[in-house]
């Protein structure tokens, strides 16, 4: 993307998105418009089935390159940039030597399942909810705490070095900030509340590391970064293209999208439709415990203001189901064609597709479930299946919003959406029909980077307050419900019947 010549003369905010497959840097102007983008992918390392790692040194090199690239494409200098914001893949865990700056092991990525057995062991007689009250999370292999424990147990001599105070732990925000602010030469070892809330080591109410959990997981406090707010100046970039610029925000990617969508009021929610889907709802300044299979997490915290909490529900298979239709089934040539195929029929022809490819996630959490296409008759064509594919994403969103309403007592008034699948008009209309609520797409698709930029801009006074950010938010499209209540209820019932049929397929979990 290039400048169109209609942007102001600056100043600007730069956002770094250290993501799962790539690192990006986007420069934004005061209106929240994109001035330039640079992006670089990094290697996905699969040492064993179920294991996923990243080379943190490669990632840091890429981050430096994309920052330089975005600044150059924008035709600006460090003097034009008022702050740097960071957003990152969540939970991915790294430990490094604070004297040399060398990682002691590849970063263990959030998708990595090597801590499955360890998590069961940590659950003891209580099970996966052992730390839920304190952390809002179930014991699952995504979260950082058990990954730290795995590293301490499996990298030779690491525990001793950690206890001696030579080793630092961090999620990718910490790694990027530590390096940006000088690394071995005075780098700041910090993390923000949103990233810390995904470690399973932080107490959601005190926003401090929980000593009891640290003891249970046998993690020495010396390795931990300082927990800071999501929007404050952590330090200044030491060198590189943005030397001297304040590093002023950090937010996990989904929380950054919540911020970029300006969901600042209790009950406002966003849903990001990519390979999988992540939905977060702002629940105000109190953490809401979930009894319906959702996660409780920190949404954001601006400086010394009260923290804002969120409920989170994720759907494992959404965009990837469309890819599956393209790559494994060969029913379409491109992802966008799913809409063409699905639009060629009026309805699903009685077919329902529950893509429980690796079990059912929120709100069911059934690992014994597997995918099902139910309701097949001779009448059903591939077009009906395509329709069922899109409806699956919409119904799964409905299940999560229902769980959020039950947990929070707040009815969803409108859903703000972003991500690649929002270009699918039929899906967005179906979503609105099934939710019986308006679905709204904002004008800037890059809400994750925008959220990091917003938080950094607030921290340095580039934007005065969240109202100014709201004023930047622009509606690009809105879909309103067109389905009558009877049809919706009948269809939902059929969907739930199809979901039931996925359960118990795997008889022996081992």
């Amino acid at each position: 993307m290039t400048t169109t010549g209609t942007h102001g003369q600056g100043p600007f905010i730069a956002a770094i998105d250290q993501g799962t497959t790539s690192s990006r840097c986007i420069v934004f102007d005061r209106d929240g418009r994109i001035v330039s983008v640079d992006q670089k992918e990094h290697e996905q390392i699969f040492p064993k089935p179920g294991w996923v790692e990243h080379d943190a040194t490669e990632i840091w090199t890429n981050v430096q390159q994309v920052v330089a690239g975005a600044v150059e494409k924008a035709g600006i200098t460090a003097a034009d940039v008022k702050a740097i914001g960071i957003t990152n893949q969540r939970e991915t865990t790294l430990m490094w030597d604070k004297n040399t700056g060398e990682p002691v092991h590849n970063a263990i990525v959030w998708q990595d399942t090597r801590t499955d057995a360890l998590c069961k062991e940590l659950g003891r007689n209580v099970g996966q909810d052992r730390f839920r009250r304190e952390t809002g999370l179930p014991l699952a292999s995504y979260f950082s705490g058990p990954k730290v424990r795995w590293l301490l147990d499996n990298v030779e001599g690491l525990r001793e070095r950690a206890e001696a105070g030579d080793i630092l732990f961090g999620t990718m925000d910490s790694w990027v900030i530590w390096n940006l602010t000088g690394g071995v030469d005075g780098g700041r070892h910090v993390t923000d509340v949103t990233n810390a809330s995904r470690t399973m080591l932080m107490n959601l109410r005190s926003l401090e590391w929980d000593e009891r959990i640290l003891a249970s997981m046998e993690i020495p406090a010396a390795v931990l970064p300082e927990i800071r707010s999501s929007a404050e100046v952590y330090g200044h970039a030491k060198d590189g293209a943005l030397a001297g610029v304040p590093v002023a925000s950090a937010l996990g990617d989904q929380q950054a999208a919540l911020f970029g969508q300006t969901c600042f009021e209790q009950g406002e929610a966003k849903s990001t439709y990519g390979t999988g889907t992540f939905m977060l709802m702002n629940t105000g300044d109190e953490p809401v415990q979930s009894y319906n299979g959702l996660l409780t997490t920190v949404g954001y915290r601006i400086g010394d203001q009260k923290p804002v909490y969120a409920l989170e529900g994720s759907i494992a298979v959404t965009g990837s189901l469309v890819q599956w239709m393209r790559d494994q089934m060969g029913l379409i040539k491109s992802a966008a064609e799913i809409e063409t195929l699905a639009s060629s029929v009026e309805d699903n022809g009685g077919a329902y597709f529950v893509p429980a490819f690796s079990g059912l996630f929120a709100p069911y959490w059934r690992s014994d479930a597997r995918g099902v296409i139910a309701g097949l008759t001779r009448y059903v064509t591939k077009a009906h299946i395509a329709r069922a594919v899109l409806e699956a994403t919409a119904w799964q969103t409905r299940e999560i919003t229902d769980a959020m309403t039950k947990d929070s007592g707040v009815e969803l008034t409108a859903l703000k959406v972003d991500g690649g699948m929002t270009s699918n008009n039929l899906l967005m209309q179906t979503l609105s029909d099934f939710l019986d609520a308006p679905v709204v797409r904002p004008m800037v698709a890059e809400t994750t980077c925008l959220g990091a930029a917003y938080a950094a801009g607030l921290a340095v006074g580039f934007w005065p307050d969240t109202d100014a950010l709201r004023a930047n938010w622009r509606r690009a499209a809105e879909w309103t419900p067109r389905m009558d209540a009877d049809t919706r209820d009948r269809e939902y019932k059929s969907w739930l019947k199809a979901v039931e049929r996925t359960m118990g397929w795997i008889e022996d979990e081992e």
Partner: protein
Amino acid sequence: MARTIQSLERAAAMLRLLAGGERRLGLSDVASALGLAKGTAHGILRTLQQEGFVEQDPASGRYQLGAELLRLGNSYLDVHELRARALVWADDLARSSGESVYLGVLHQQGVLIIHHVFRPDDSRQVLEVGAMQPLHSTALGKVLSAYDPVAHSEATESDREAFTPHTVTGLADFESVLDLTRARGWASDVEETWAGVASVAAPIHDRRRMPVGAVGITGAVERVCEGGELGAQLVAAVRDCARAVSRDLGAGRF
């Protein structure tokens, strides 16, 4: 027998030769198999290569069939693919112009709106995806009629209804509007379809330079026009957007 073009026959023979099993052939293989002088064979191969029908292996210098042949078979661009590619650019156009953005393709006798971005103010607006617009009076329709021969015949053979006193309905006048559109690369509609409404549109081309759609902005005439003329900055923004989408679809710079 009717008169045929020898070089086309030879090119066709070369493609059949290269299609015979999975193989790469050198220049002399091709020349001798078809009984041609090397220079003649090379000229034809080079032309086919430029069109993408033949590719040359950089290491061995041997020739094989090109990817373009595969694409010929399924050349139809899915409109949802077009929308997905245009999304970012259309959003940016709406923000920079302050007006609503429409993306249209030819469908039957009119323009089918396949993408719509709201005007970036807080007013209530309704998504118009799926709506039809006339070919002869709207900016999108004029662009399609100027660049797409099928749209052109639909528009010239239709009745060209007068929606307002400004609608151009006469065939000769309409053709000169299309000539102007082709000459400057964009079309306008100043109160020719709806009173008080003006629009500007430019063509989107695919990688073969085929016109696959049109993108434009629509707004109140007093905002879009300056002293009776269309705002030059708006026109430039629309054309930039059309070029950006075309580039994303693989069209070269033009």
